């Protein structure tokens, strides 16, 4: 079960993900991210503070945007990962390809390129 909300702050869109992302709920996450990606010039922050578990299908969602983010030079950052979730990203090596920040401020700083 996953609960996804979006907050807009100027040119910043924050996608708040709460709960567990498994094979079925990964589709919701995928839709939410792709929707935000389509809007041009948007900087995207994904708030994973409330994310308790992510399955390989969920990781597959993040993985599928790596190429696009790079190509279109989209500013996208993840933040607030708990220890377990961070470990999962790290083991797979996704931390090397995605912008991952500790908190919102740091994430903001990263997308604004400060």
């Amino acid at each position, binding site marked *: 079960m996953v609960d996804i909300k979006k907050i807009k702050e100027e040119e910043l869109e924050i996608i708040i993900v709460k709960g567990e992302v498994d*094979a079925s709920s990964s589709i919701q996450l995928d839709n939410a991210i792709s929707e935000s990606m389509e809007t041009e010039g948007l900087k995207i922050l994904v708030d994973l503070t409330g994310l308790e578990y992510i399955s*390989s299908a969920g990781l*597959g969602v993040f*993985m599928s945007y790596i190429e696009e983010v790079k190509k279109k030079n989209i500013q996208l950052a993840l933040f607030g990962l708990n220890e377990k979730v961070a470990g999962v990203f790290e*083991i*797979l*090596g996704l931390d090397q*390809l995605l912008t991952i920040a500790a908190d919102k401020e740091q994430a903001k700083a990263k997308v604004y390129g400060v």
Partner: protein
Amino acid sequence: VSTKAIIRIAAFFSAIVWIMLLFTDLSLVFSSFHQLKPGLASWWPNLLLNLFILLVFVYYKLRIERIDNVNFVDLLWRVFVTGLITAVASVVLRIFQFILSGTPFADNVLFLDFLYQFNLGLFIAFLVSTFLVWKRLILYQKSKFLMRTWRVFETTLLLTLIYNVLPFEWLDGFFNFLLGGLLLLGLFLSGNMKWVAYLNFKQKWKGILLIALGLFYLGYFFYTIARLATDINGLNQILFADYRENVFIVALLAFIFIYAVFSLLVILFNLPTSSVFEQKLEEVVNFQRLSQSIQTEQSEGKVYEILLETSVSTVFADAAWLEIEDAQGHHSIYTYRIPEREVREIAQYLESKKILGVLDTGSDKSRNLSRKMAQLKNSRFRSILAYPISIRNQQIGRLALLKEVSEGFNKDMARIISTFANQAGISIENFRLLAQALENERYKEQLKIAKTVQRALLPELLVNDADFEIVAFSQAADEVGGDYYDTYRISESRIALIIGDVSGKGTSAAFQMSQMKGIFSSLCQLELPTEEFLFRANNALSICLAKKTFITASYFLIDTQQQVVEFSRAGHCPTLYFNASTQKAEFFKNKGLGMGIIRNETFRNYLAAHSFKYLPNDVMVLYTDGITEAKNAKGEEFGSDRLLHSLEKWAQHTPEYIREKLITTLYEFTGTDHIDDDYTVMIVKFK
């Protein structure tokens, strides 16, 4: 002794006893008539009469109780036949008497007594047999109370036989008292007429006829014997066994008469309503047919036909139709005495008038739309009764019944059709579920094959060496899974080890796993450095791997000559290594990236090669995330710490033992016998 033998013995002895009775009575009458001193006690005839009654009773009891599958008309037929035989025998004797009339013999008291005894014997046979038939009718629907009452009645009746032979004058006062009690009990028992309800119209008429004839015989015998008794008494005030002094016979006669009259009246009054009972019975039978159709019929179509047929016959509809959508979404229509064109006209008319609740899908209620139908021009039908047919609250069809008279359906009919429609819905649902179950069974069979095929992709034997021993264990969450492990001897001193995990699980993961196996086993032979191996594997997988799917793997090269292990990690769970010299275990934390995440040359940048020297008794544990992510009831994960501690605890044992312990610990932790992910463990112990 068989029942049949007892019946024969009873018949034989009753005949003997009757002859004895006849002669003792004759001798008593003779001696009394000629004022001679009787050589016999006066109670002899009574005793013999009682004995005769008892034997006849036994005879008929056994005969009538032997009949299985009681059919009421057959029982009444028995009464009629017994009555007929006895009456004919009596009439034959009467003719004989008539022929002899005028001769001095005809008025002889002995001859009259003979006639009297003969008729009485026949009468008793008729009474006793009828009594036992009545018993079966009364006890058709038994209750404990009824059984008890009947037993009291029957026992008392038989006990009066003893009363008859008791030679005490003062007992005579009890006669009326006993008779009254028995009559009251008989009257009470006569209220049990439930069997009448089970007769159909024709059977009721037969019943009336047979009972009326039974009453006629009763009257005939009563009259004949009464006349003879009076005649004998008129000739002389003599001692002879008058049945009118026998409580048993009088009570029996009265009871049989009462029950016969009651039955006759009840059947007569039930005649007009018997068609309703028959209809109810038909409804039950139809309902059963509908329920059973699912087990016996081969197609849904047959269920629909039965539904239509039974509905029509139950409510006497003039026409009907059934529209249904089958599991494949095909629309079909079944009609009874109505062309499809007319069905469409009526449906269109109802829809155009916005008459909801009959044919629309939104309502589960039916309406009796006689009034609305009255306005339908050019139609012979004036009433309609319709019901939706639903499966799990979803309408799949509708059943409509039509009548040419207005207000043709009553509430009762609506109720029964509703039940039919519901039952049909259940039957059809069962039918579809059955078909589905069969299909599932087929899929399961296919999956079983897939499982065996996939199992064959995993190695049956692992490479073992003088320097190390390897054991492994793999379990898929579903029939097939996405975990893979293998060993490969490249040369005398170089052995390759691989463990891989496709993201996701189930069939799709299994397909990717088989691709991985193909790529790995071909690349193994190239003797590539570990980094290069994974890079090339990624290149190959990039072409064939589904989007959003990735594979994590670790690749090891063991060099037994130099006692060195070189390895690279592609996003796979960190290898756990137990160092025998320090007795500590640790995870190798090194750089890596899952395959398929980056599908170009830059993947090389995310790989690294590592190597270490191994020593005897060191243990290396390769595993997939199914183990560390296995959850217990509280939602906690098994985690890498538990894995590490488990290894430290058992590292000094054989690899088989470590494997067994690890798996047991894992299952003890999760508390189930099924882990919802593919998991694999591979244990290498160096020597």
